[in-house]
């Protein structure tokens, strides 16, 4: 197993699109790191650069102790699982899994043994003689995993391997992947745009936005202490509410302290040093509803989504969207006006560029 280090990695595609901007990232030996970001944020490009499928424009890729920036994919000893299973459709599952071993000239008897081992671990024994077209989507993705693990690579790259599966299967395979990670002790880099998947799987999460690494940390860190407004918006289902506002007031008690005016809300804050444009973030669970004029302002109810254990209420606060998450079923009707209250201890303040304040 091996660590992975990316140093000042940049990638500019032929058309001039810069997919990655001077990216630094360290993945520890044996770690499962999740690369999380919306589509087009450069996650897949990072994987492809590590794998050697994409040429790096500037910067370095280091796997273990070795600089592999200019090595061909086969020499890097990494395995990758793609969004599509990418199995060889003309070969049986057994031959698909055996393929990398055969190319490496491993002895027949050893191939048979190792293929069977991988197949047993992934519950594929029954479908070994079938072709990819004759097995289920879940089995195909397992077979792709088998092909990746059979040669015991130093590093696994997983590019949204579960995104094409249905919800039930996804949860099942997610568990199996975690078990596999524990059993093999392998270094894994897992790409996803699904932040639930990131939170449940990653030992650490690296959040990307527009080709830049915004934050790297444990799931708790990126949720509790987002490094900027992009991370704040992206992590959580739904993500953090971010209101555009303006700081106002003299800071004197008589004046009611400082206030942020955002849409129809006026939220008192304790920040004393900031005047002018800013952004205020608050997670949906810390937004509550109350009677009109009893909270920090009023808002119109746009959509009510009852989910059983909780209800999401989408509001319009003077032109600014706001989501409240309340437990159980909420007695609010679309089109009515409600009062909004916020937990002031749970506010996040960002400057107009999105960097955290205070």
């Amino acid at each position: 197993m091996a660590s992975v280090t990316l140093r000042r990695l940049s990638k500019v595609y032929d058309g001039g699109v810069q997919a990655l901007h001077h990216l630094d990232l360290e993945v520890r030996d044996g770690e499962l790191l999740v690369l999380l970001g919306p589509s087009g944020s450069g996650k897949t490009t990072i994987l492809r650069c590590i794998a050697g499928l994409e040429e790096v424009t500037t910067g370095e890729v280091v796997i273990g102790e070795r600089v592999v920036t200019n090595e061909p994919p086969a020499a890097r000893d990494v395995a990758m699982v793609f969004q599509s299973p990418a199995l060889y459709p003309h070969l049986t599952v057994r031959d698909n899994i055996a393929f990398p071993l055969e190319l490496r000239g491993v002895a027949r008897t050893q191939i048979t043994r190792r293929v069977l081992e991988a197949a047993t671990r992934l519950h594929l024994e029954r479908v070994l003689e079938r072709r990819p077209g004759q097995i289920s989507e879940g089995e195909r993705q397992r077979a792709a995993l088998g092909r990746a693990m059979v040669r015991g690579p130093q590093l696994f790259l997983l590019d949204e391997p579960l995104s094409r599966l249905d919800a039930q299967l996804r949860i099942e395979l997610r568990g199996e992947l975690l078990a596999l990670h524990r059993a093999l002790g392998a270094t894994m880099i897992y790409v996803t745009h699904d932040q639930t998947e990131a939170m449940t799987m990653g030992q650490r999460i690296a959040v990307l936005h527009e080709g830049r690494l915004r934050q790297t940390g444990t799931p708790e860190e990126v949720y509790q202490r987002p490094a900027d407004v992009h991370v704040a918006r992206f992590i959580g289902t739904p993500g953090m509410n971010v209101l555009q506002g303006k700081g106002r007031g003299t800071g004197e008690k008589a004046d009611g302290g400082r206030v942020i005016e955002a849409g129809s809300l006026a939220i008192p804050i304790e920040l004393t040093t900031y005047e002018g444009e800013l952004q205020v973030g608050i997670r949906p669970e810390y937004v509550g509803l109350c009677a009109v004029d009893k909270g920090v302002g009023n808002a119109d109810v746009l959509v009510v989504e009852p989910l059983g254990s909780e209800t999401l209420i989408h509001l319009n606060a003077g032109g600014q969207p706001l989501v409240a998450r309340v437990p159980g079923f909420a007695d609010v009707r679309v089109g009515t006006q409600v009062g909004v209250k916020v937990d002031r201890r749970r506010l996040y303040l960002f400057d107009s560029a999105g960097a955290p304040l205070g």
Partner: protein
Amino acid sequence: MRKTLLVGAAIVMIAPFLYMVSVSFMGESELLRWPPPLFPTSPTTANYAAAIAALPFNRVLLNTAVLAGCVMIGQVLTSAAAGYAFVRLKFPGRDGTFRLMTLALILPTIFLVIPRYLMIEALGWIDTFPGLISTELVSVWGILFMRHAFLMQPRDIEDAARLDGAGEWTLFWQVTLPLARPAVTALAVLAFMDQWRNFLWPLMVTRSARMEVAEVALARLHGDYAANVPYQMAAAVLVSLPLFLVCLIASRSVMAGVRFTGADARL
């Protein structure tokens, strides 16, 4: 409405073929009646016996099979290799070469026949199999066809193979080419049929009866027995029979290949 049109078109296309078969069983004088009969009144196989003797059937069939078979294999190999190179390999002048090559499609075959003939003559290959076959081994259309088939292949599979340790050669033989099997089959069948019906080039480059291929033999028969239509029809049925069989066996895979289902090969 659409069905009626299709049935109509099918009848228009198949009727001459059926009539050819029908006439081939008629006596020589039967066709002289007016209106000409649709079916033979007393079917005879004598035309076939005579045609086989006159062709000579075995030799002509063998020559045509050698020509069509060699060209089929040659065109599949050159088209697949060149198509792959144009899609997947990076080399200087690639796109320029490709454009230049597609321009060759604009030229009518007849333009190329004379320079080709001069080359084959200079090589001393007139009236030999190398002369007959060598000029047909590369098909620009075939290269375009295979290039397109490779373009439609999912990139992930190729990437997976590279990571699995496959070099360019392994990738081509063990992954890309098997994946393009529908297209390869279609190209093979079309090349075979095309060469089976090749007339102009064999006519120019062969001289002796020993080297005669199907179409050329038919043309000679037409010259020799212009008045005896049933006789010519019997010969025509004989030489198109192998083609007919190939069509029957391969039509499905040709359709699959031409529709490029190779591209959505089930994963």
